[in-house]
């Protein structure tokens, strides 16, 4: 993926089995979010192809891709500010289900994300973290086959982060999940197989523990954190 001069993602070969939970690490500016944008059609790759569930979705429109079963939580929360959390999530649930079912699913998802108490609040007036959770709920309510989470734990504290981790693991049972995160504590809770990006290219693919030990990864990314493991 190229922006004028900038090459943000450079011939990446990334395969994901269904039902797999994959963590995506990488320095700031490595191209993780851009990579997500390419997968969801928010950006059209300048080269290469993306196939999902056997279909070539390169250059397809976002909504088409999403309707094939991809759900994404973007790095900067994208939510419907003017309306309530409930309405937000419902709009997502309603895609696949009839009204009564959608209602149920909505309530249930809010429950899962622990924001039932915010259901009637206008999302624009929520705190940053609260908005993050609302967005997560919207993604889950879409019941996607592939879930992309761009820094879901950003701005979460200890036990909230733990709950989030549980949530991610649960979801991973019914769908393939890719998580981008810088919060190592969080990563350690969920990660098995990890891909590390650097300068827009895949830098390493290995089990989490090996990654944590990897000299070069520590070089470019982890810093002291590794030892804390």
């Amino acid at each position: 993926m190229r922006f004028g001069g900038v090459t943000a993602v450079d011939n990446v070969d990334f395969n994901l089995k269904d039902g797999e939970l994959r963590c995506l690490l990488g320095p700031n500016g490595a191209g993780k979010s851009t990579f997500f944008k390419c997968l969801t059609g928010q950006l059209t790759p300048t080269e290469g192809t993306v196939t999902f569930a056997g279909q070539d979705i390169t250059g397809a429109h976002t909504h088409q891709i999403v309707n094939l079963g991809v759900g994404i939580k973007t790095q900067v929360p994208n939510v419907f500010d003017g309306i309530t959390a409930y309405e937000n999530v419902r709009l997502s649930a309603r895609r696949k289900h009839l009204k009564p079912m959608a209602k149920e699913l909505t309530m249930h998802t809010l429950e899962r994300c622990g924001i039932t108490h915010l259901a009637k609040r206008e999302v624009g007036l929520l705190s940053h973290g609260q908005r993050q959770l609302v967005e997560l709920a919207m993604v889950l309510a879409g019941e996607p086959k592939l879930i992309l989470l761009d820094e879901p734990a950003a701005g979460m504290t200890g036990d909230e982060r733990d709950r989030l981790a549980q949530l991610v693991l649960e979801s991973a049972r019914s769908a393939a999940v890719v998580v981008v995160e810088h919060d190592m504590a969080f990563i350690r809770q969920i990660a098995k197989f990890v891909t590390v990006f650097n300068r827009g290219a895949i830098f390493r693919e290995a089990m989490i523990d090996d990654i944590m030990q990897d000299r070069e990864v520590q070089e470019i990314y982890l810093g002291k954190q590794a030892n804390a493991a």
Partner: protein
Amino acid sequence: MEKPVTRDPGFYVMVAIGLAVMFAAPVMLDLFTIMQITQYVVLSVFALSLGYIWGFGGILSFGQAAFFGLGAYTFAVASINMGSTTIPMVLAFVIPTIFGAALGYFMFYGRLSDVYLGVVTLVVALIFWKLINHTAGPEYSIGEARLGGFNGIPSIPTLHVPGDPGAWLDPGQMFQVFMAFLIIIYIALRFLIASDFGRVSIGIRENETRASLLGYDVRKQKVVVFAIGGGIAGIAGAMWATYQAFIDPNSVSMEMSAKALVWVMAGGVGTLVGPIIGCILLQWLTLQLGTVDVVNSIAVLGAIMMILVLALPKGIVPTARSLMLGGYVLWKRNHGQGQAMPGKAVKE
């Protein structure tokens, strides 16, 4: 817009008022007043068209008059040629709707948004206006109907009972028919907005990216909303044409478009009653100012508009609502429930 229309008392109140006026007015008011409010009714429909696409679709049209005018001219030409007004009325809805869809396709599939979109609509209206103004010569006529350029098309048939071109409606009946139109359109829009379709367009208004990330086709949705708005504006135009019995390029003018914007804003974006109220209020003012011997009617109207914006930033209806709400909360507070903070406000 969350609780279903059928459980919103406000909705029933509005419809009730509408019906009451519709049946009471002709018996209670004199001919002139009837014709007066007929005008408000017609323009309210126009205001609604913009109020809908802007308030509930986030589509800002600076050229809504293009559809109004298109509807008006369609009706004028068709009815003069056919001598009947029923089919022309239908055409005045269909043609602007199609045009709206086409223009919408042109704009939204071209990723045009916000103010750029506004200006494109404006430009389209201006082109329409220029061309219409240029049709003074006798060569510009469609069938019987001379387009007449700046002077417009005179002696447009009055509405008649469908199927019986002899049976003109008298002003009273015409008023009732138009009032019926208004009420029906209002109800239709209320339900449309409360429907899933409506909620999605509200979602799009709030955040297009997320809407498409939920799998909604933003562009298609917008085109439909825009087209509907165009159709409604078209009907309003047709009503205008037969109400005035003449039509001229002013109906496509930038001023007409701006008026609509002003009504919606004054009344309150994101409501349906607002545009209607804003329209009636400002039209009434304009009319009154011309009858009293003020220094300069237009200057005074201008001043009033400015004050309106500054005094009621959110528009009349929302302001009224939040006043009521605030009052309610305060009431609760004074009765001990609310857990408000002590200490008085400090100006920041």
